[in-house]
């Protein structure tokens, strides 16, 4: 195991309890990203049991990278993607969060075509 021989930088506390102005999680911007990603990836996709699990994993990481690119400092981001086959069954999605309403939020979008539907949600928690 290599030992660290360089200089260890110690950072002082920033005492930041709220996100900086302009750096607060913006649900509308993230909604647009989710919408465009789902439309571009799924427009012509048919539901397939074998390929769906890989598809949603790659969708998850793509959405996560796109949200990271917006550079929301000190935010923990959770992206959840669900894909289901359209066979006329009933389905209901619900979620609740226990968070700080001033700083935390979520963005969601539902996409459907003839053979599948996809719900993608991104939750963001600020860590002071």
């Amino acid at each position, binding site marked *: 195991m290599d030992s660290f021989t360089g200089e260890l930088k110690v950072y002082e506390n920033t005492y930041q309890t709220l996100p900086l102005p302009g750096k607060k999680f913006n649900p509308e911007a993230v909604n647009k990203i989710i919408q465009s990603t789902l439309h571009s990836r799924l427009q012509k996709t048919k*539901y397939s*049991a074998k390929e*769906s*699990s890989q598809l*949603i*994993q790659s*969708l*998850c*990481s793509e*959405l*996560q990278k796109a949200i*990271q690119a917006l550079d929301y400092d000190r935010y*923990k*981001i*959770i*992206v*959840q*993607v*669900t*894909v*289901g*086959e*359209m*066979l*006329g*069954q*009933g*389905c*209901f*999605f*619900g*979620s*609740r*969060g*226990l*968070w*700080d309403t001033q700083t*935390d939020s*979520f963005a969601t979008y539902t996409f459907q075509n003839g053979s599948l539907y996809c719900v993608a*949600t991104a*939750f963001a*928690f600020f*860590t*002071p």
Partner: protein
Amino acid sequence: MEDLQSSEEAAFVVEDVTNIIKEAIEVTLQQAAYHHSKVGQWTSNVVEQCLRRLTALNKPFKYIVTCIIMQKNGAGLHTASSCYWDNASDGSCSYRWENKTMYCITSVFGCMI
């Protein structure tokens, strides 16, 4: 020693949370048959019960609880999630339940403050 104990108590314990989810679902959906007019109520009940019990654990965590109730029809469903957080303190767990007429998949994500 006190610091070690407090960090263990404040960690996300997957077993405890899985039990909480399991009990919330069983209380709400036991012996129920899928009905489109009741699904909304059921989902709200499951999620709110989970949150109430998670709050009662008194840990310094922010939680998200999501619940999917789907009618049994032979249709396929896949769920995935990707989390950008601190692996040492944060965690998630998921529980799948079914009866003759429906599936219920509930996930809890917890992030330490």
